[in-house]
């Protein structure tokens, strides 16, 4: 069995499962945020209206809450949704609630690994599509809507069709101008936005072994853009060390069997990759950054669960150090702890001296919510994950997706720029 199959077999109390089996699996952790949480509460209210008595959730210690999409509260409706979350955690005794303005908080997917809310080998479902991110810890992590999440809160289990696994072997050494973002954009561009629909995307190979955890999370994060049910990487020493730095709780790391069956194996030689950008309006619409050097931009955005982890900020800061941004530059660290570390390490000074505005941790403009939404015809290069029409604002705005290095290089020149072409 693959790692995904082994985790789902354990969670559904079976000796074995195979791709295509439908199982009801026990869930180890579940997450809601300020969009899915109020949706869940609406489902529960409707059940109560129909006569069901709801006194508790199945296990409040396995539930956690993030405030990330519309925070700090954008308007009255957003503020009410935050109050709904407050009432939810109070009513059900949910202790892990990361509140903005009260210490550590941030984008749910970043907290999931930064705070070790989820452990290797677990089944984790979240009310957000980029829940796949957490799979880089070697867990089964997948996103769902609020009815499914409400069902998990009541019953502690949910149905899954065991996915086929596509194995992506990343071999060789990663060149200094290449980041995980370039790799995942290349994979999506080559294979399409539905190559992994209903399937698992697993990453392995020598390039994974040398890849820092933050970069691995970029790979699994954007498996969502390939349609994947989950993205996953088998845990290695680096994974175990990362988790143990953050928690004392015991866990059982799982790896796939030697004879695991993969539906298809793709091999990429990372040494040969060039910096890549996804043009509007699809993450699969890729071109080399150098092919787009005539594209003028209005804004550079460094944010989101995809592109505002500590390593993302560090690489962007290295690129921009001592230079001025020629266009509007926004930096929104993905969590409060990353924000503080970037402050203490001097990264924020580098961005501020370049002219950037630093925003609070939030999903912000990535989903067109607030904090730098785009106008008609505005062109943005962004470290985020989607560039559908209207994703970051007006339906005729244009978002180019790229690595933090490419975004920082482009901020310096005012055009889409390969990091190798920035001098001085």
């Amino acid at each position, binding site marked *: 069995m693959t790692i995904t199959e082994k985790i789902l077999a354990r969670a559904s109390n079976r000796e074995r499962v195979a791709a295509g089996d439908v199982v009801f699996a026990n869930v180890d952790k579940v997450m809601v945020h300020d969009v899915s949480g109020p949706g869940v509460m609406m489902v529960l209210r409707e059940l109560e209206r129909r006569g069901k008595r709801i006194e508790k959730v199945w296990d409040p210690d396995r539930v956690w809450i993030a405030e990330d999409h519309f925070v700090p509260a954008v308007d009255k409706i957003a503020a009410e949704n935050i109050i709904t979350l407050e009432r939810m955690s109070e009513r059900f005794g949910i202790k892990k609630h990361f509140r903005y303005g009260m210490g550590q908080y941030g984008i749910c997917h970043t907290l999931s690994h930064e705070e070790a809310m989820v452990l290797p080998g677990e089944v984790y479902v979240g009310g957000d599509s980029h829940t796949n991110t957490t799979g880089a810890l070697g867990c089964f992590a997948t996103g769902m809507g609020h009815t499914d999440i409400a*069902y998990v809160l009541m019953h502690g289990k949910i149905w899954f069709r065991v996915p086929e696994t596509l194995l992506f072997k990343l071999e060789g050494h990663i060149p200094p101008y290449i980041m995980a973002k370039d790799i995942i954009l290349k994979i999506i561009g080559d294979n399409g936005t539905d190559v992994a629909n209903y399937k698992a995307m697993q990453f392995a190979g020598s390039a994974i072994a040398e890849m820092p955890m933050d970069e691995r999370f970029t790979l699994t994060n954007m498996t969502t853009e390939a349609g994947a049910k989950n993205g996953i990487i088998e845990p290695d020493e680096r994974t175990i060390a990362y988790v143990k730095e953050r928690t004392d709780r015991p866990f059982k790391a799982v790896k796939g069997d030697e004879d695991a069956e993969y539906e298809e194996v793709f091999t990429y030689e990372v040494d040969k990759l060039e910096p890549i950008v996804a043009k509007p309006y699809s993450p699969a619409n890729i071109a080399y950054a150098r092919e787009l050097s005539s594209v003028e931009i209005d804004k550079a955005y460094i944010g989101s669960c995809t592109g505002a982890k500590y390593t993302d900020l560090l690489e962007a800061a290295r690129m921009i150090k001592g230079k001025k941004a020629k266009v509007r530059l926004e930096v929104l660290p993905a969590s409060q702890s990353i924000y503080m570390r970037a402050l203490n390490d001097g990264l924020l000074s580098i961005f501020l001296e370049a002219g950037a505005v630093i925003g609070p941790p939030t999903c912000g403009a990535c989903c067109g919510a607030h904090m730098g939404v785009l106008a008609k015809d505005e062109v943005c290069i962004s470290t985020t994950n989607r560039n559908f029409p209207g994703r970051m604002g007006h339906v005729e705005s244009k978002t180019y997706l790229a690595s933090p290095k490419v975004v920082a290089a482009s901020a310096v020149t005012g055009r889409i720029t390969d990091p190798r072409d920035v001098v001085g």
Partner: protein
Amino acid sequence: MRGKVHKYARDNIDTDVIIPGPYLKIMDHNELAKHAMEGLDREFVKKVKKGDFILAGRNFGCGSSREHAPIALSYAGISAVLALSFARIFYRNAVDGAYLLPIEVGEDAYNGIEDGDELEIDVERNEVRNLSKGKVYAMKPFPPLIKRIVDAGGLFNYTPE
């Protein structure tokens, strides 16, 4: 089920065009319905009638896990979406929340059905009948679990064996 079809002959109709991000904070279903398909067709909500269908290409509903997407379509009047394929979260949201039926059809139906055609969908016989053109197409049968959840009226009404 019987209604008129609204055809969008394209792949990858994503959740951001079905219901744009800024509306995610809205929980009122009827309010969401006012903005259904806003990123693709601002006339949609004016022309759609209760029971109507959407026909589209591959990977319908890709992108976010927002249940707002099937909710907005359902409350705007859509009873089923016919597509060459569906993104996984949209599919399970539509079924588990019992908002609308996600029906996979083949290239024959996709190419043969035109915008505005009157359709009848028979999920017991797995048939899509084009009443305007007098043609019958096969739909892909629901997998057994999906059929049971559909018949129960959503995941909360379904009792696992």
